[in-house]
């Protein structure tokens, strides 16, 4: 600490100078904040203002700077000083814009500004300049697991970007399901006819690519390490094992078709003439190879009527079959109906659907099929039974609202769905796995403490936020692509593979530089643990949403910093507070909490601590300020990396310091979570449910600590929540704990 030189910079621009007394703030920085250097400036983010700070760092030896100006989310480039630790006091969005410009509001507005500066000074003195994770790996090869259209595309995209690839395929040949297609849906204008799958060319391109090393008939025996330094043991055909070092992994393990035998009511497994779409592709390809039309599988007879049954064993509400829509199968049936119509328009083809889902240009393809005379009937098939050489299909016509029958269908094609090949579900307890008839087989065989494969979100699909951050899984440096991520068709899988590959490349590069990956991309801080205080409680190893923490033989946590996303959930979990980041710790936040000037209980000025997630809630509060949606002057907002990083000590400290209420604003959790760290907000809510005991011990009302799920768009709602809570606090009265700290 000897060489720490602190400085405070108070900006008067953007109206700050007119709204608050900056001279008074400067005095506070000197006297209370104990800053070595305090400067006011009319326009701090101007070239001159920035130069002033830079000169102080270079010439005056300033190591720590608090900038009291705009939000930490604004002017990040101007106020980027890589050689100094920087704290920001949010006087613009968080104070003057969030408060009415009136004479009566002036006093409380000034108090807010003063407090934010005190908090900034407090935080600053506990911060260190992050140095970057020293435990880096520099492997820049990409492992692609799966040799279907997703995997092949991923490999080729990586190679084109200049990266080496190791591709592992379980079967003896490349191409996966896509290679078994007779034809695929069109991808070009006029989207009218099925087209060649192009898989032969894709396979040839991969085989001919010197950047890509292909292992077929190969599985992964072990995956060890972290981004930038994964060591992967691959069992190859000969029975021997190869170890490859890679920087990141794309898992493109695709899907298995839903077993048609589970659909006996639709004739699945009971009649040879009831087949799934995959089988029809094979029949069509075989027929084409021989130059013959598609024949009845049962007896080789002529096909005159084909019925396609959509949503077979899908979108099932009974819990017996797949609950979801696989998305690709309407297009597949339309395409397959065309196999018949294109060969012979006299063949009667009927597609029985509930909702025909033809996204993108699929609509044009659908119209093309209608023009070709494919009949589309909105209905729900109730039974398919063998009848003579063919089948009888009974269904409820949902337009005419009556039962109907198609007799003499030569072929019935069931549009079954995609079941993801995602390996072991690590959330299923071992004792339940032991009871299973068919034991799940791991794909990655990760050596991670939390389990062998990627965590699953729902329905067996690997975790990923469909909208905000697709491809991301809960294992840093491992990205999923294609139908293992969500059900999809060839075109979507191709695009998916390119996206996942680029994310994987980013992750490798970041790992090599000791920086964090999404969403704190580029962050140089990393978790540091003081093992001498650790009680081996395992909370950090269990709760880390990213499986970054393993355990050693003595059951101490082993941090794999490159797997870490820097959310701080471990820090929030640690009961003995031995985990911290250089610039974010129990102390940096605790110092802010303690720095606030809490007026006595007769002042009628309560203090409310708001702990706001920096990803959604904090920007929402900032934007509320930008829109001049005013809120109570009694709140003091501290941004946190994730609610998961909130340590209960902060709550206890704040209550003891005489705060009257605490609001925690984090992201939505659950299956449709919006938490950037997937499980952070969920873990926080579990932990906070236990805060009630603390409150009871302190004889405080339960309402003194509340939490809300907030989205980044809640710009009008957040000020309302704050104001409602301020009114609530007013109702229950001031905290009795003031003045005891």
């Amino acid at each position, binding site marked *: 600490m000897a060489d720490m030189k602190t400085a405070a910079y108070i900006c008067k621009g953007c109206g700050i100078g007119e709204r608050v007394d900056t001279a008074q703030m400067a005095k506070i920085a000197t006297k209370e904040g104990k800053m070595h250097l305090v400067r006011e400036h009319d326009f701090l983010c101007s070239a001159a203002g920035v130069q002033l700070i830079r000169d102080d760092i270079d010439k005056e030896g300033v190591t720590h700077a608090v900038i009291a100006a705009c939000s930490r989310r604004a002017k990040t480039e101007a106020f980027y000083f890589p050689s100094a630790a920087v704290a920001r006091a949010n006087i613009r969005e968080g104070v003057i814009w969030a408060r009415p410009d009136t004479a009566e509001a002036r006093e409380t507005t000034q108090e807010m500004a003063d407090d934010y500066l005190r908090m900034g000074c407090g935080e600053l003195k506990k911060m260190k300049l992050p140095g970057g994770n020293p435990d880096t790996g520099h492997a820049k090869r990409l492992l692609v697991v799966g040799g279907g259209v997703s995997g092949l595309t991923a490999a080729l995209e990586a190679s084109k970007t200049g990266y080496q690839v190791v591709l592992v395929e379980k079967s003896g040949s490349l191409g996966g399901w896509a290679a078994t297609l007779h034809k695929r849906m069109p991808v070009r204008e006029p989207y009218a006819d099925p087209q060649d799958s192009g898989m032969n060319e894709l396979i040839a391109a991969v085989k001919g690519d010197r950047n890509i090393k292909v292992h077929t008939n190969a599985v992964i025996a072990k995956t060890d390490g972290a981004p930038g330094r994964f060591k992967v043991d691959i069992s190859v055909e000969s029975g021997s094992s190869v170890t490859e070092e890679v920087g990141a992994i794309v898992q493109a393990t695709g899907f298995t078709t839903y077993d048609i035998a589970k659909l006996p009511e639709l004739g699945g497994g009971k009649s040879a003439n009831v087949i799934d779409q995959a089988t029809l592709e094979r029949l069509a390809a075989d027929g084409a190879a021989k130059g013959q039309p598609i024949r009845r599988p049962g007896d080789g007879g002529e096909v005159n009527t084909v019925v396609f049954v959509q949503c077979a064993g899908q979108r099932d509400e009974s819990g017996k079959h797949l609950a979801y829509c696989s998305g690709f199968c309407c297009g597949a049936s339309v395409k397959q109906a065309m196999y018949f119509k294109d060969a012979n328009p006299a063949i009667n083809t009927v597609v029985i659907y509930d909702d025909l889902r033809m996204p993108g240009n699929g609509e044009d393809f659908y*119209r093309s099929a*209608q*023009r070709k005379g494919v*009949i589309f*009937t*909105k209905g729900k098939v109730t039974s398919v039974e063998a009848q003579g050489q063919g089948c009888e299909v009974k269904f409820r*016509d949902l*337009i005419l609202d009556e039962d109907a029958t198609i007799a003499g269908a030569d072929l019935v094609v069931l549009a079954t769905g995609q079941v993801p090949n995602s390996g072991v579900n690590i959330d299923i307890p071992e004792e339940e796995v032991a009871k299973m008839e068919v034991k799940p087989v791991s794909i990655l065989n990760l050596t991670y403490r939390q389990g062998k494969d990627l965590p699953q979100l729902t329905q067996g699909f690997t975790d990923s936020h469909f909208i905000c951050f697709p491809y991301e899984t809960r294992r840093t440096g491992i990205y999923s692509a294609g139908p293992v991520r969500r059900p999809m068709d060839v075109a979507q899988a191709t695009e998916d593979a390119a996206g996942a590959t680029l994310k994987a490349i980013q992750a490798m590069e970041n790992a090599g530089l000791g920086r964090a990956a999404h969403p704190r991309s580029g962050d140089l801080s990393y978790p540091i643990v003081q093992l001498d205080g650790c009680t081996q409680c395992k909370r950090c190893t269990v709760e880390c949403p990213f499986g970054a923490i393993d355990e050693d033989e003595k059951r101490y946590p082993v941090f794999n910093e490159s797997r870490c996303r820097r959310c701080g959930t471990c820090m929030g979990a640690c009961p003995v507070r031995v985990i911290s980041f250089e610039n974010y710790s129990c102390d940096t936040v605790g110092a802010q909490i303690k720095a606030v000037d809490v007026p006595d209980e007769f002042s009628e000025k309560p203090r409310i601590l708001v702990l706001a997630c920096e990803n959604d809630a904090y920007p929402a509060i900032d934007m509320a300020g930008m829109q001049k949606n005013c809120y109570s002057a009694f709140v003091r907002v501290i941004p946190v990396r994730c609610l998961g990083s909130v340590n209960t000590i902060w709550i206890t400290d704040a209550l003891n310091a005489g705060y009257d209420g605490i609001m925690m604003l984090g992201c939505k959790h659950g299956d449709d979570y919006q938490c950037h760290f997937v499980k952070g907000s969920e873990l926080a809510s579990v932990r906070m449910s236990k805060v009630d005991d603390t409150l009871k011990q302190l004889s405080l009302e339960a309402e003194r600590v509340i939490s809300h799920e907030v989205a980044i768009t809640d710009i009008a709602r957040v000020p309302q929540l704050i104001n409602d809570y301020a009114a609530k606090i007013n109702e229950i009265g001031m905290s009795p704990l003031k003045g005891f700290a």
Partner: protein
Amino acid sequence: MGDLNTQMLDKYRNNFLREVEEKVDDGDWVKMCMQCGVCAGSCTFGPDWEHTPQKIFMMIRAGKREEVLTSHSMWLCTSCYNCMVRCPRKLPITHIMHGLASYAHRLGLAPKNQPTRDFSMIFWENCTKTGRVNELKMTISVYFREGFVSGIKKMWTLRNIGRGLFFAKRLNPLELFVSHGCKDKDGLRRALKKADEIEARRRGYAVQPRGYSS
């Protein structure tokens, strides 16, 4: 006319959709319906239709020939064109409804005494007689189509309207004797007769007997 129906039944067997595509005006659009139901919800007399256009399209695909062609439904079309402009697939639904009604009539399957059909027939006969509509004669024909007594009754209930229109100079008994009309009504009727011949040739029907030859 029953003969034509038998002929068509033989020709198309169970493929009513194909029959509609080939024989009904704009019938080749029927297959393009995507069953959204906007037409049904947009129809002026929709609640009175036994089968909405959406259902009719589905029934055609389902081969319900008899049910469709003997239905009153499409005769309830007011030609408001609401369905047509709203159809996301741009089906000319109004025309298809007219086409189906017309085809049903041609086959002799349209319901007996269907009021719109009868009115349509009267209108056509009226307007092609001289080349222009004689509103008074047309009105009388409509009211008396179910016989003399019922005609008198209808005329009696509507007497005030008639009187009002007379005083407003928008109805005049003189029309019974002095009709408007084309000078070259013979040329017009020859052209219409020819049109019928061409139509019959194109569709493969016998020419409908009409009173065009004056």
